[in-house]
């Protein structure tokens, strides 16, 4: 079990460019979550999927951010026209069906210059 895999671990983009972050959940896990972590805001919930369907995107900024889960083995978080305030560590997590704990990946550190 390799755990939740996030790629890349680090990404630097120029202001206005697009960034795509990838997440491979643990095999068999049906729920996939995205969180954003910054020093100022702490750990913010962004969105989650269950069985590939979007369930709750209440934490997603309404503009420029989108998340997809095209199959059970990966999810993507896309940020269009990145801005310096998007700089953060983006964490992906997954969990089994039912009400168990979530398992986190090591995160992608996004830096917008």
């Amino acid at each position: 079990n390799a755990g939740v895999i996030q790629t890349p671990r680090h990404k630097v983009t120029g202001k206005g460019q697009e960034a795509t972050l990838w997440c491979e959940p643990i095999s068999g896990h049906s729920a996939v979550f995205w969180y954003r972590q910054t020093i100022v805001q702490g750990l913010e919930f962004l969105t989650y999927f269950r069985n590939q369907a979007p369930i709750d995107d209440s934490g997603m900024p309404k503009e420029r951010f989108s998340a997809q889960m095209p199959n059970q083995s990966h999810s993507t978080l896309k940020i269009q026209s990145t801005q310096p305030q998007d700089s953060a560590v983006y964490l992906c997590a997954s969990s089994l069906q039912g009400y168990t704990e979530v398992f986190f990946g090591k995160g992608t550190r996004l830096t917008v210059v």
Partner: protein
Amino acid sequence: AQSVTQPDARVTVSEGASLQLRCKYSYSGTPYLFWYVQYQRQGLQLLLKYYSGDPVVQGVNGFEAEFSKSDSSFHLRKASVHWSDSAVYFCAARSSNTDKVVFGTGTRLQVSP
């Protein structure tokens, strides 16, 4: 609104001393409760969890937490800390009718020699 509060942003203790990190939750009913730890540049790892039953739950590395319904709290304790316990600790909660896990803002623990 459902929320988790960690009132102490930073805690410093001496190696060998006892530790308590505070966590309060605001949920209707009793949520599932978790403590996670995040070491430098790592993802979050589960320390322990509470679903029901004995209010004192044991976790890894000598950590335990006590659930109190009357106080809406889930404080983390350790009898004797080690320098390697220096990390950020997150309290989290999940209600029984959703997958979504809500995190507190975290407490940074510094263990001094």
